[in-house]
């Protein structure tokens, strides 16, 4: 065995080089693709995405069953009352509901697992010995998380739109400010809402990545991220803490309704996006500070 096969494997450098070097971008894409396939081909993550798709369906059915009465305009959560009149609002209602728990939980699971899972499995030491490069590995991990956040928001939005269109009439969208815009313009606004929510989740993912870099127990990391998110949401609802509200990581999550006014309420939107960006940068830096110096003993 072997000698022949190994020499046949040997073309690696010399022949590979002769055929021209492969640029770093190709290597980044290849590594990112590998990372994405790990995330998206994992049954647990697919189940989470399925739940994200199923909840809008449940909300839609529930609203369809209760729609004749209308149920009192003042009491229903935002967007719910509009769903009966326009299925597009089911997407907004779904994002609104899922942002409370399920969406952050999904992101927490994947983000908490990102580094801690590799450490817990022991695959981290092999990745680093390859060497994947610590900065590069962290960058790839975060890029994959951001893509997962986008996918999660897209799943909710698309599932809600489909079920909304199936159960309710769909037409020109009446914004929160009372103006009515065309369906196409409404869908565009909805796409921006989904992107805004994905940005919020990407900030949470950065927090998750940092926490994940501190442990080799993914469950611990996931729990910590969720506790942090819930603590922030609770604090955000306590009026006595009003001073710190704008600085809480979850405070701006629901500000996507700024996109549903005419004109768009830019200050709220910028505040939100700035908050997400700052959180991503701070926790990205924490993750890097930890990961670049940590002894990998798992």
């Amino acid at each position, binding site marked *: 065995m072997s000698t022949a*096969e190994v020499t046949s*494997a040997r073309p690696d*450098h010399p022949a590979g080089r002769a055929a021209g070097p492969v640029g770093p971008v190709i290597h980044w894409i*290849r590594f990112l693709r590998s990372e994405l396939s790990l995330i998206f081909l994992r049954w647990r993550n697919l189940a989470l995405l399925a739940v994200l798709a199923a909840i809008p369906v449940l909300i839609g059915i529930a609203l369809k069953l209760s729609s004749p009465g209308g149920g009192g305009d003042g009491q229903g959560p935002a967007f719910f009352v509009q769903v009966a009149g326009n299925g597009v609002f089911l997407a907004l209602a779904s994002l609104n509901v899922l942002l409370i728990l399920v969406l952050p939980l999904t992101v927490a699971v994947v983000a908490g697992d990102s580094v801690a899972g590799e450490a817990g499995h022991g695959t981290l030491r*092999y990745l680093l010995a*390859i060497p*994947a490069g610590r900065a590069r590995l962290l960058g790839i991990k975060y890029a994959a998380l951001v893509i997962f956040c986008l996918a999660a928001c897209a799943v909710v939005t698309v599932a809600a739109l489909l079920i909304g269109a199936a159960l309710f009439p769909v037409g020109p969208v009446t914004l929160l400010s009372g103006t009515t815009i065309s369906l196409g313009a409404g869908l565009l606004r909805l796409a921006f809402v989904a992107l805004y929510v994905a940005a919020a989740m990407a900030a949470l993912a950065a927090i998750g990545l940092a926490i994940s870099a501190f442990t080799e127990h993914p469950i611990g990391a996931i729990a910590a991220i969720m506790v942090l998110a819930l603590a922030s949401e609770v604090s955000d609802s306590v009026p006595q803490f009003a001073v710190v509200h704008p600085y809480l990581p979850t405070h701006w999550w629901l500000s996507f309704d700024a996109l549903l006014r005419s004109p768009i309420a830019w200050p709220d939107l910028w505040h939100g996006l700035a908050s997400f960006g700052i959180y991503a940068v701070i926790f990205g830096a924490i993750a890097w500070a930890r990961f670049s110096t940590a002894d990998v003993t798992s």
Partner: protein
Amino acid sequence: MTSASRAAGQRDEISFGSVDDQPMPAAARSQPPGAAGPAITTSGLTKRFRGGQVAVDGIDLAVPHGAVYGFLGPNGSGKTTTIRMLLGLVHPTSGSHELLGVPMPAGTNTILPRVGSLVEGPAFYSQLSGRANLARFDAADRTADPRTADARIRAALDRVGLLSAARKHYRAYSLGMKQRLAIAAGLLRPRELLILDEPTNGLDPQGTREVRGLIRDIAADGTTVFVSSHLLAEVEQICSHVGVMRTGRLVFEGTLDDLRSRGTARILVRTAQPAGAAEVLAKLGLADVRTGEHEASAQLGGQAPEEICAQLVHSGVPVAGLATPRPSLEDLFVELTGEGFRVDG
């Protein structure tokens, strides 16, 4: 294999033009980088963990180029921590080291692609197949050519005999298959240095023999192999050089022959009259005469065994057998590493 054909598999930054295939003497430390210097050198390498526990205490390794170097020591003597430092996974508290003549950790990105490793047992993604696992690790290597990935993965799997199980899920692999997959990961591309931490841990005798054969093959290709073990027998069969660790310190480094020559040879006489034999041995001036059931022994000193035999026969001692055993390596290791060393595994 000649050095020229070996160099063909290497990158061109460093040329190994004039290496002969003789393992270098252990004394050949600290050659300038770029020459065919030692594959691994460490100088005062120390790791003190946060609890204050010193896992590795100022070790100076010199692993000659082309050697199969056995890194021996009891469990907990600092072998794995040393290997983790060599690979840049753990940051040394003090001291420095070079791999293939290049200082680490500065050379991490340029040198580690030329180093294959197995650290503290195999670790893979249980939901992926063997092939997909290797593809994952190959994708993480920014110096591996994606165009040759499939062929290289195939060759690596073939080399460890896993080609038929390539599509099986890793979680369905036996321990021996997992271990072999880990070695395959180290062989995804030609390496100049292979660092294997306990490669036969947990394997049955059959698997152990396969891995040993694999290591011999790899070494025959000119790859320097650094293999840690707590099993003496393993090291004795495949290694040209050994380093022995004891509680974080390197207590011996050299060739196996160096180690053997540390022991003093004895003469052992098998006889029906041990007492008579012992008397003759003592009369000949041999030290440390001992008797056992049907045998007598003494330190050989400088005397010729055949003359001792003649004397015994001359004195009427029936000699059923004569041997001049040196202390087994096992004895020497126990001596070096102290109690608690598992020589038999």
